[in-house]
């Protein structure tokens, strides 16, 4: 099983596909679930406190807006754990959306820079493209090593 970072990081479809092929998706939903369930932190809606943008300084300098650093405080550690990545380009907002273009740029850069196996694929616009899209992702996921969790 490989830890696979997905982009958009909150894409339910991508996350589900990764899971179906026996790997662990690294996705925002899990991350958000964890922080909103953190006992003792009361900062709705996401429980992000001023500490997160400070933690985000690990990934982006202080002149980068707080909203980017706050997001990076969640995404950055996931990228660090990633053993593979799937980046879907030009996707529709309903497929998954990170909200901030600067965060998107930095996220994709950090995934690419990591030197892990990556599938970069365009979001499909026709049924035919859709089938090809699913096929390519499936092949990529099948190519990833299984059993890293047993090491």
């Amino acid at each position, binding site marked *: 099983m490989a830890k696979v970072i997905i982009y958009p990081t909150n894409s339910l479809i991508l996350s589900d596909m990764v899971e179906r092929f026996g790997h662990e998706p690294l996705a925002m939903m899990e991350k958000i679930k964890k922080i909103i369930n953190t006992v003792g932190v009361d900062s*709705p809606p996401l429980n992000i406190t001023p500490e997160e*943008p400070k933690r985000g300084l690990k990934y982006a300098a202080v002149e980068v*807006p*707080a*909203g*980017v650093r*706050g997001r990076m405080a969640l995404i950055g550690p996931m990228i660090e754990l990633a053993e593979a990545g799937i980046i879907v380009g030009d996707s529709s*907002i*309903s497929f998954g959306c990170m909200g901030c273009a600067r965060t998107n740029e930095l996220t994709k850069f950090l995934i690419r820079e990591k030197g892990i196996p990556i599938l970069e694929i365009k979001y499909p616009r026709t049924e035919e493209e859709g089938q090809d899209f699913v096929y390519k992702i499936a092949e990529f996921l099948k190519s990833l090593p299984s059993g890293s969790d047993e090491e």
Partner: protein
Amino acid sequence: MSDKGNPVLIALVSCGSEYAGVQSELEKAASTLNAKLVYPEMDVATLDTIGMEFGLEVASPDLRLMMARAKAVVEGVAKVDGVFVTSCFRCAEAAIVRNELRRYIFEESGLPVISYSFTERTTAATLLTRLEALTTIARRKHLLARTKQTGITAGIDSGSTTTKAVVMKDNEIVGEGWVPTIKVLESAETALQQALDQSGLKTEDIQAIGTTGYGRFLIGEHFKADLVQEEITMNSKGAVYLADQQKGPATVIDIGGMDNKAISVQDGIPGMFTMGGICAGASGRFLEMTAKRLGVEITDLGDLAIKGMGENVEMNSYCIVFGIQSLVNSLAKGSSPEDVAAAACHSVVEQIFEQQLQEVEVKEPLILVGGSSLIAGVPKALGDLLKIDVIVPPHSQLIGAVGAALLASGYVSE
């Protein structure tokens, strides 16, 4: 501070505030004022088309979300009393969207709008004055419509540097007091006593009191004030009253001791406004430091500046430390005190122009108020920069106190 009754509904049109650690501060400030932040609903499909529809193609989906929410406000899909437009500080893309949305919402809906760019360090206290002004405009429109003072009322403006007080009777200022703010309560008492002495009236003659400024809550409680109100509302009311510009549009620029405000006013009611306060270089404190360095009284700095040519002095920074250093260097190189005084006035005004007036539509008449307006070089520098006539009304340093006394008289009639 919080008004009872139905909460004021404020549409939060924001990008990333929930990721920047400031959301809870926004909520905290709103609940203090009995306001409720609401998120205008829109169809998610509009996010794909709103950029082209609005004419502003941006890469960030959250900025498109802001546009869609602004549209929902303007079209009345979301029923709100005011709008708070906010995005991350230092994001150029968001700054463009924020400014255009503010203008769009204000012009198309007439709702009061404020905008602010936050960092993770933005606290509820910083947001409070801005949100308080927004809720006041929404909640107390009838009070703000008051154009004449009636009865005997007092207004006290407890500012960061000085405390001002006026006593008004039958639409006339009959006494005024102006003292440095040292101990907030004592300074307020002294200023009020000065005003009472000048008016020949006694404390018990006062029928209603209004307070404003940084110390408004403390002195409001002490004097059992009828009206305790932030300075955006009070100052703009006082400014248009004193300048006799109560009808139609006006722009009020208030350069105070610690911060400054640029307020776009319509019929005496603030619409768009910005409030500085991060940099002392754009405040009266910069002029105080310059006067000290030149060895003149702050009151004489303006006359000195009028005689000088600011262009003769090279200033490398607006900063209160490095800017003053530039002025000192110029003096050492032989610049005249007149030129240095003029350069200092120009520096303050230029910074306000660059940082605040870009966000507020400057409509004439332009009314300059606050202690710094009395330094003649400041209105001159502002007029030169904007190429328009600048009005400095009589008692221009007392606008907050006058606005407070004027609006407090609403409680006399009631």
